[in-house]
């Protein structure tokens, strides 16, 4: 990521200890102006705690948080100017939509006219101007969500934090809100930290993703880097589905490794940097393994296998393939008419490009 710019927010060696044995961290990362950074991980990985530390609802045990160059973690929560959108929205049930959005402005002792102007503009922006007199209990989940966002954004915070904001919505609404969030983000250009356990959400929304596990950042990078070049088996497995195959490096040529993964089965993978020695972990994404390419195509890896289980997933088929040489691979295929003829026991000719094979140093 660009290092010539000054980050809006910098987390340095954050450690939070709950009990002698229970702690997260040290966690360090930066968020640059206008950037959308996701903290992604399973529950209990420390992503929400990190967010709450930034918002000021938890004290750090060690480390520091800087907003631009100002030490943030010693300021009380109400003086941080860091907006937070809660998982369950946490709207004020006794105030209508308008007053919910005006809440922070009124505390900031801004003039009545100015408050009115800002709140109206914000309600227009999120499309809630027609329901500004409604109470939170009279709103749909999506509308409540938008009030929560409007309430935070109207304060013009330097950084806006989202704590799993879509997890309480049903699938259809979640997808719609995801699009809205992305639109809003593009219009506002706010620096954003977005906590989620949903990898598709993180991939779709983020400029960069930090994958957390057991209170540590496993990898931080663009969605493409995270998905295609995961730094660890955990990341490979957590983001999407991955075939992880153990192998031994037996040769190297022209930026490619030859890896023996089974009895007589050798795969070729692209590689940059120092050549790893000994055993490695190889990742193949199920949708990057093809079984329908003509032999004539120049593709580095070809191997054959027998089709095992077929799982129908609607859009896709998930195929379990016993590869000759003793490998078990998951392969994703479209569930279109062409693939309807697939039956367990069928012989498959598989292929995979060397660029789609990713070697994890073990």
């Amino acid at each position, binding site marked *: 990521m660009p290092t010539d710019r000054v980050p809006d927010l910098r987390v340095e060696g954050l450690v939070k200890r709950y009990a002698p044995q229970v702690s997260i961290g040290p966690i360090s990362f930066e968020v640059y102006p206008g950037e959308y950074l996701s903290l992604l991980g399973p529950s209990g990985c420390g992503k929400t705690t990190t967010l709450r530390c930034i918002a000021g609802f938890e004290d750090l045990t060690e480390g520091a948080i800087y907003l631009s160059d100002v030490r943030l973690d010693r300021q009380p929560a*109400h003086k941080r100017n860091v907006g937070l959108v809660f998982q*369950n929205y946490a*709207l*004020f049930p006794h105030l*209508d939509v308008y007053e919910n959005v005006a809440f922070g402005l009124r505390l900031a002792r801004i003039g009545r006219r100015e408050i009115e102007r800002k709140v109206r503009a914000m309600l227009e922006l999120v499309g809630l101007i027609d329901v500004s007199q409604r109470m939170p209990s009279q709103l749909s989940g999506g509308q409540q969500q938008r009030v929560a966002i409007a309430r935070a954004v109207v304060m013009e915070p330097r950084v806006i934090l989202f704590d799993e904001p879509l997890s309480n919505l049903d699938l259809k609404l979640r997808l719609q809100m995801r699009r809205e969030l992305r639109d809003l983000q593009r219009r506002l250009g706010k620096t954003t930290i977005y906590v989620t356990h949903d990898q598709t959400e993180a991939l779709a929304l983020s400029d960069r993703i930090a994958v957390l596990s057991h209170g540590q950042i496993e990898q931080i990078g663009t969605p493409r880097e995270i998905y295609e070049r995961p730094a660890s088996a955990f990341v490979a497995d957590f983001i999407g589905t991955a075939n992880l195959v153990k192998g031994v490096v037996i040769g190297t040529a022209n930026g490619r490794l030859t890896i023996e993964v089974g009895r007589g089965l050798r795969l070729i993978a692209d590689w940059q940097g120092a050549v790893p020695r000994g055993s490695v972990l190889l990742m193949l994404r199920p949708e990057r393994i093809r079984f329908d390419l003509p032999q004539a195509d120049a593709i580095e890896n070809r191997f054959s296998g027998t089709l095992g289980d077929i799982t129908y997933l609607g859009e896709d088929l998930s195929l379990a393939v016993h590869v000759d040489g003793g490998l078990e691979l998951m392969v994703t295929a479209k569930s279109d008419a062409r693939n309807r003829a697939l039956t367990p026991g069928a012989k498959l000719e598989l292929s995979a490009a060397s660029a789609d094979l990713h070697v994890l140093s073990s």
Partner: protein
Amino acid sequence: MTAIVQPDRRHIALWGVALAAPNALYLTLVLLIPLGMVATYSFFTYSTTGVALPVLTIANYAKLGDPYFLRLIGRTVGIAVKTTIICIFLGYPLAYALARARPTLATLGFFLLLTPLMVSPVVRAIGWFVLLDRNGLVNSVLMYFGADRQELLFNEPAVLLGLSHLLLPFMVLPLVASIERIPPNVEEAARNLGAGGLGVFRKVILPLSLPGLVSGAVLVYVEAASAFVLPALLGGRFVRMIGNEVFDALLVSYNIPQASMLTVMLIVLTIGVLGTGLALSRRGTVGRSAP
């Protein structure tokens, strides 16, 4: 075997009447009828020889013009209001702490809170004597440090102390129930939007716990206004409340019409506050601030 029948609305209404009937009957016998009699007696003429002369008069109520009775009513309302205010100020922080405490700690807290209700009023008053008497613990400590002996009993502060100690649970319990229902996230949202401790209380906790505050205040006020044992023991001759006056009129001077009149006054004062309180709480729950 009979089939299981879905109860219809009339069925339920009938059951409701049947279930409420014993209590309604009981209340009619022991509350409504005696109250009616008390109200009637308050308009009867004082008799030196019998219970009362059944001659209608407003002479009993005319006594309310007497400065003694005006002071009595003023003192009773004053003590009740002050007790309520003390309980609000002591009760809010306590209720908040209990509502947000870990379950084990909260259980202990509730137990301690309810202990004053577990001993009889007389025993409780004796406890205060041990502390506040001329030779009590507080005076011993004061004099040990060279201070003068203080008269701590038989004055209004002593009564207020005793009453607020006794009635604090009546304020705290409804408040806890209200505060518990406020999601902690909502407070955090307020802090995130720039509200300090006082701001969170004023703009979130207070409006959202208003129903609890009102029911607590009504309970404390009603109990304090009709207090009898504590003002008698801790206030002595100097801090008399309506309850004490009723007791004396009834059992000392045997002036039943006057006791009845004072009882009616007490009920009127209480119902007045109750009505206002309920109206306030209804407005509080429905109400919302204008944009």
